[in-house]
């Protein structure tokens, strides 16, 4: 997953830090709230990561311990500029919340009980819900190609959102299904592998 970009690395590191600092500053409502911003800034706008690569990185970020947002920033930073890029992106992602919490702890103001603040966040969280939903739909269009993938996506939503099954278990299930298909269904494996090759050749030409 090593990057391939014309920009000099030191400048790229600074840009990585700046981009993730801006994203980190506006990630309200948990790590997933970061995804619409990452998609816009990293995939659509700067074209640092391809849409398919981003989904793989999120899969990996979800499967590792630690905050998903931090994991994703480390993966993207590493992809673009190696270890130093990973550190730059991680610091950019973590420092905004560090400074904001420190400022709140220092002032000891009960800002969360202020009615204007509460109304502001009613609006913010409503928008974040919509943005995350749009991201899920956009990604589903790339990922759901046949009935197996459709079934997996629907099963994941039902198990996690309604039966509160742990995310890690559901991810494990998806990996096991993929693994099982590799061993039991060579025709599908060839089909999927061929499609992956075509996709990787496509955008480079």
């Amino acid at each position, binding site marked *: 997953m*090593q990057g391939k970009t014309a920009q000099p690395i030191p400048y790229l590191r600074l840009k990585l830090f700046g981009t993730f600092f801006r994203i980190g500053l506006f*990630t*309200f409502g*948990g*790590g*997933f709230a970061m995804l619409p*911003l990452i998609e816009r800034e990293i995939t659509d706008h700067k074209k640092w990561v391809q849409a398919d690569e981003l*989904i793989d990185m*999120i899969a*990996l*970020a*979800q499967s*590792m*311990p*630690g*905050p*998903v947002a*931090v994991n994703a920033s*480390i993966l993207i930073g590493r992809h673009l500029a190696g270890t130093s890029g*990973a550190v730059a992106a*991680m610091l950019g992602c*973590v420092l905004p*919340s*560090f400074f*904001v*919490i420190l400022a*709140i*702890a220092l002032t000891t103001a009960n800002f969360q009980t202020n009615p*204007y603040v509460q*109304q*502001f*966040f*009613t*609006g913010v*969280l*409503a*928008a*974040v*819900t*919509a*943005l*995350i939903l*749009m*991201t899920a739909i956009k*990604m589903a269009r790339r*990922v759901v190609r046949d009935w197996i*993938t459709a079934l*997996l*996506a629907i099963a*994941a939503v039902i198990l996690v*959102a309604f039966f509160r099954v*742990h*995310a890690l278990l*559901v*991810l494990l299930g*998806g*990996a096991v299904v*993929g*693994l099982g298909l590799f061993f039991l269904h060579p025709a599908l*494996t060839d089909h999927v592998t061929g499609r992956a090759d075509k996709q990787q050749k496509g955008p480079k030409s």
Partner: protein
Amino acid sequence: MSLLFELFYSFFRIGLFSFGGGYAMIPLIQSEILHHGWLTAEQFADIVAVAEMTPGPIAVNSATYVGYMTAGVFGSMVATAGVTLPSLFLILLVAGFVSRYQKHPLYTMVFYGLRPVVVGLIASAAVFIGKTALVHLVENQSLRDWFATLFRKPLDAIQPAALLIFAATLVVHHKFKLHPLILIMGAGLAGILLQFIF
């Protein structure tokens, strides 16, 4: 000194052993903090509420807060470093290994199974946030009871201002492709303005 080490070690363990991110991490964070007596249960509930209204992952937020409360600015730095360093080490270790096998059909098939699950997890995150943001759910209320309320007294079951902002965000994002930052800030302002109507 030993307190700083204790903070670092405790949050390092949280970073190392909590999977699933966000709210899946809360139980482990809570038990570590209460076990050490660093915060009371009410203080911890407070920090969870604050974390919802401040940017960033809840694990980082609580590390910074607990670190500051127990050992000042230096403590907040140590705790925050502790909770993020396992991610850095593990990912740098694993990502190199994973990328080496990226072309292998086994890798392709594992990710063929993983990708739709990730999409499902993202959709579930929308459901979780929407449950607190868009509707009024009484503690432990079942889906059936909620629907019953929806038909009897619809305004008790939903948050009309939030639903309006939700719908507006969907439409504006789809039509005008505005930057999410602008949408988020605009939605916050709309939240303040709409209270004068509803």
